[in-house]
């Protein structure tokens, strides 16, 4: 086994996949979360239930979907339900253990913006919007977030509260009557973060191999807090890497093919 030859992005996907277990019922956001969830399924969690908002329950795609509604998801699903049922019975009903989201912008309390950069009425950049995320963030039992670090993405103050994380921190969720746990894990290409038990501010608990604290700070728009004891993330195993690379290669070929 060698830990030397992998990209930060591969480390991010693999670290995120390790956080998922066989018994999880995971509502999968598109992009980085989708790769991580499927790597979990193809390695240590073969029985994980993956759910996409298009209504596919227990799906096991051979290639990563480009959209949340690719035919591959339906073909390999246990069952496919209408979209209102997806959001009412399965998400609002409390049956999702982990909502797995990406983010265009995130703050230190795990609040997410995927709506606009700038003012809502006169945005500098009009982003796609919330989609399923506002209710995934509040109705899933807990929320994992994954994104590559940059000062543009990890900001002191997000421009719009698309999906509520821990708000201003502390017990803000409870004060709004939200009884789910909210963001409990943030996996970036450099580190693993967990919310402080009291303040709920995301705190670095593990650095990926070869990553120094300055690198985390340089790519983050707020002053980073590190846990008292910061671990080193175990590097990807050969098996994890080869499964991830095979999946990416299959996916790329499938999406280019006409």
């Amino acid at each position: 086994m060698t830990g030397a030859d992998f990209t930060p992005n591969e480390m991010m996907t693999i670290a995120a996949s390790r956080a998922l277990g066989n018994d999880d019922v995971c509502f999968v956001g598109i992009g980085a979360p989708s790769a991580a969830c499927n790597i979990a399924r193809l390695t240590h969690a073969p029985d994980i239930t993956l759910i996409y908002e298009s209504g596919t329950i227990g799906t096991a795609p051979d290639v990563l979907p480009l959209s949340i509604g690719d035919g591959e998801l339906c073909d390999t699903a246990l069952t496919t339900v209408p979209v209102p049922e997806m959001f009412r019975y399965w998400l609002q009903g409390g049956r999702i253990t982990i909502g797995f989201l990406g983010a265009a912008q995130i703050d230190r309390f795990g609040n997410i913006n995927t709506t606009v950069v700038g003012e809502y009425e006169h945005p500098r950049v009009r982003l796609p919007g919330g989609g399923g995320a506002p209710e995934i963030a509040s109705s899933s039992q807990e929320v994992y977030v994954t994104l590559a670090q940059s000062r543009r993405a990890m900001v002191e103050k997000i421009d719009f509260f698309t999906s509520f994380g821990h708000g201003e921190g502390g017990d803000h969720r409870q004060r709004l009557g939200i009884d789910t746990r909210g963001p409990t894990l943030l996996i970036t290409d450099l580190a693993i973060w967990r919310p402080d038990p009291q303040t709920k501010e995301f705190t670095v608990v593990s650095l990926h191999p070869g990553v120094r604290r300055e690198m985390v700070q340089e790519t983050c728009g707020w002053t980073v807090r590190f846990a008292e004891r910061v671990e080193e993330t175990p590097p990807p195993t050969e098996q994890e890497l080869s499964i991830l690379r095979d999946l990416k290669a299959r996916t790329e070929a499938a999406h280019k093919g006409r």
Partner: protein
Amino acid sequence: MARFLPLSQAVSENLHDGDSVAFEGFTHLIPTAAAHEAIRQGFRDLTLIRMTPDVVYDQMIGMGMARKLVFSYAGNPGVGLLRRLRDAVENGFPNALEIEEHSHAAMANAYEAGAAGMPCAVFRGYRGAELARVNPNIRFIECPFTGEELAAVPALRPDVAFIHAQKADRRGNVLVEGIVGIQKEAVLAARRAVATVEEVVEDFDDQHPNLTILPHWTITAISVVPGGAHPSYAHGYYARDNAAYLEWDKVAADRDVFRDWMDRNVFQARVEDFEQRVEKLRVAG
């Protein structure tokens, strides 16, 4: 009572300037051929409704057909942003666009309320979400039994809904399968409904008893348009043209490239061209 019509007639009889219209399809079965026919007929001042406005709404907005957009996720799924929509929202080009923005849960509930004949939908949502600040159609009510605060949004009742489906039978019953999305609710919520279908079969007698079938008396008009969902897909018929979605990102990035693409692929194209576009995407079935 469903009438089988050529697509041009189905669109001209059921869509009018100023209408609120839903061309629904959740990634799957997007009624592209119907949307292109609407573009060729040049409707104006439309309120476009859809959970996931993607390429066809980018096209309609880019052609200046829309006054307002009601939506919950406006992106090119898996690819990025909708660049004609961005141009309208950020720069008012080709015209300013009013937007009413929701979450998926809200839109799904609102269609369901429309189908159920309710004035509004009630659900547990928008908690801590800022959309409630910028959209006056998001309000909160108290549960009369538990006191819990719940979100409420008005029911969606489009003037007309367009869907694409796999099959109609001779009587005009319409069968949808695979990712069924929100189409059934959109049809039942709308005052008029137009379906394009891949093919017409004799009847559905030998089908599984729990399939999603819209009775012929819920559909206003049906047009047979093989390939009519391209570059989306039709489960059991042809695959999603992911390459076309990737290409759209480049086309829509530039106003002139966009107009040129629309001229060649919509204005100078015919309904029958859809069948040839999916030829290489056909699945063994």
